[in-house]
């Protein structure tokens, strides 16, 4: 069994490398494999300034969002909760908007701070609401989260109209990696330590998934781990939304697929979640870039369509079992 899982890991890592390599050669400027030994200055510039930053940000966002989904699912004890279905992403957008209204001259750091705190606050509020729900069904809790997210989005939109920043808002509505160039995506690196910390705490997050009573009986400081989890996902959500925009479904479907295939023992499954998340997002990005070549479809759209279909399949499968 361990040998088998090692093979799967090697296969996934290999697949990721190959896809990543291919993705560098997709784009409006025609650079092919055969040119690799005699790139001119412009080619090198395109690769270094645009293609590689784009690739890195997709990998980080893919890993980060999937792992975030996994962690909130453990915390909320619900497989259909994710940063998209609990208001966290809407709250990040609201935070960015507020910082634009209150500190129009503020830079990335101001936006990030605002957006992080509002995302964290919204996540905490969602958990408190979810804890009050008597009928904790698989579908009902995320539905409440979606409503909660829509309320936040509605409030944000109201202020956006009032202060004439609707157009600025649009940029964060649908995830899009085409604007990413060297110099404007580096805050995404913050998601890397977040993933590492998540892995170090994998056992504790698994125990949180056994429920509060069982976790406490095993001597876990339940509250501390829950808040740590919300803190981590708020950082990831903030940096991803600020650089690429909202990427829906990723945090929802990737952990579910991994759970069906490999179970819920996070120490074992978190690497799979990250790898599959990165591969999934990279494939979606490559489709977005080639389907209407030389134009580009926003990746949020591709992810939504593919993710939506997969999600529907998961819902139907789960509902049959539960």
């Amino acid at each position: 069994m361990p040998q088998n899982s090692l093979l799967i890991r090697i296969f996934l890592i290999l697949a990721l490398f190959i896809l990543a390599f291919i993705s560098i050669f997709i784009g409006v400027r025609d650079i092919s494999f055969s040119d690799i030994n005699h790139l001119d200055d412009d080619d090198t510039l395109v690769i270094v300034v645009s293609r590689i930053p784009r690739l890195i940000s997709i990998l980080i966002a893919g890993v980060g969002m999937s792992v975030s989904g996994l962690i909130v699912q453990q915390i909320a004890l619900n497989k259909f909760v994710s940063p998209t279905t609990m208001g966290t992403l809407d709250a990040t957008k609201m935070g960015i908007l507020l910082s634009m209204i209150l500190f129009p001259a503020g830079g990335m750091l101001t936006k990030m701070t605002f957006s992080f705190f509002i995302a964290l606050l919204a996540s905490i509020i969602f958990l408190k609401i979810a804890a009050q729900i008597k009928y904790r069904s698989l579908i009902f809790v995320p539905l409440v989260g979606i409503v909660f997210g829509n309320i936040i989005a509605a409030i944000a939109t109201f202020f956006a109209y009032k202060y004439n920043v609707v157009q600025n808002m649009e940029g964060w509505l649908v995830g899009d990696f085409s604007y990413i160039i060297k110099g404007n995506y580096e805050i995404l690196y913050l998601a890397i330590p977040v993933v590492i910390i998540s892995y170090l705490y994998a056992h504790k997050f698994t125990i949180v998934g056994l429920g509060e009573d069982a976790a406490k009986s095993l001597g876990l400081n339940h509250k501390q781990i829950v808040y740590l989890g919300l803190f981590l996902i708020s950082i990831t959500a903030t940096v991803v939304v600020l650089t690429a925009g909202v990427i829906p479904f990723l945090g929802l479907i990737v952990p579910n697929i991994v759970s069906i295939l490999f179970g819920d023992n996070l120490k074992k499954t978190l690497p799979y979640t990250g790898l599959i998340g990165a591969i999934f997002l990279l494939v979606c990005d490559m489709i977005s870039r080639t389907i209407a070549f030389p134009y580009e479809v926003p990746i949020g759209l591709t992810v939504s369509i593919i993710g939506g279909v997969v999600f529907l399949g998961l819902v139907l499968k789960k509902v049959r079992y539960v």
Partner: protein
Amino acid sequence: MIEVKNVSKSYGERVILNDISVSFPEGKIVALIGGNGTGKSTLLSIISRLVKKDEGEINLLNQDVFEMTHREFAKKLSILKQANHPNVRLTIRELVAFGRFPHSQGRLTATDEQKVDEGISFMRLTDIQHNYLDELSGGQRQRAFLAMLLVQDTDYILLDEPLNNLDLRHSVDIMKTLRALADDFGKTIIVVVHDINFAVSYADYIVALKNQKILYYGPTAEIIQEDRLKEIFDLEMRIISHDNCKYCIYFK
């Protein structure tokens, strides 16, 4: 020794426990009995710190339980609640291994692995130890959680209706296991049981709760009297003796 002193608990207007004092002797099985809503589960939850008390004191070996660290407490006392079985996809072995968490914090030593093996085989789960919990029957899952509790290896074990979901054979198995844990390993066990005959057959002491208070507390033989049982359960019971054991008859 677990000492409960003047503990009260209410949710808003609704009083659950009213000034409860009781101490649980070492190495014995104590059964908590009483009708629904008499506060049995709440009392267990308060002792195990899962629910905050409004007033009173809980001492474990003369130390206030609320002053212990999470880990220190989890090495001494474990609890299995009736409802803590969410739909997680862990294998039986993965789950049981988490019982060692208070001791090893996730890094299992050879001793830990051995204890996990023992716990699994004790609950007769060895053949299915690599199956996922969500593929098991209710009874198998219950036994997996009990195995985790065994592996946690605490001196004090609290169980909230452990016989839920179990068929008769496994119920008897579990009660025999508890008996062995008390007799052979000196564990102190407090268990909420609904079936009075299991309490009569296996418990050393019985605590009967009614109207938010302790109605009776004493050695099992003293509590098992027709007039007292009628008062506890509001139900006519007949006690018969068979092979020196008492049984309560109340079905008709």
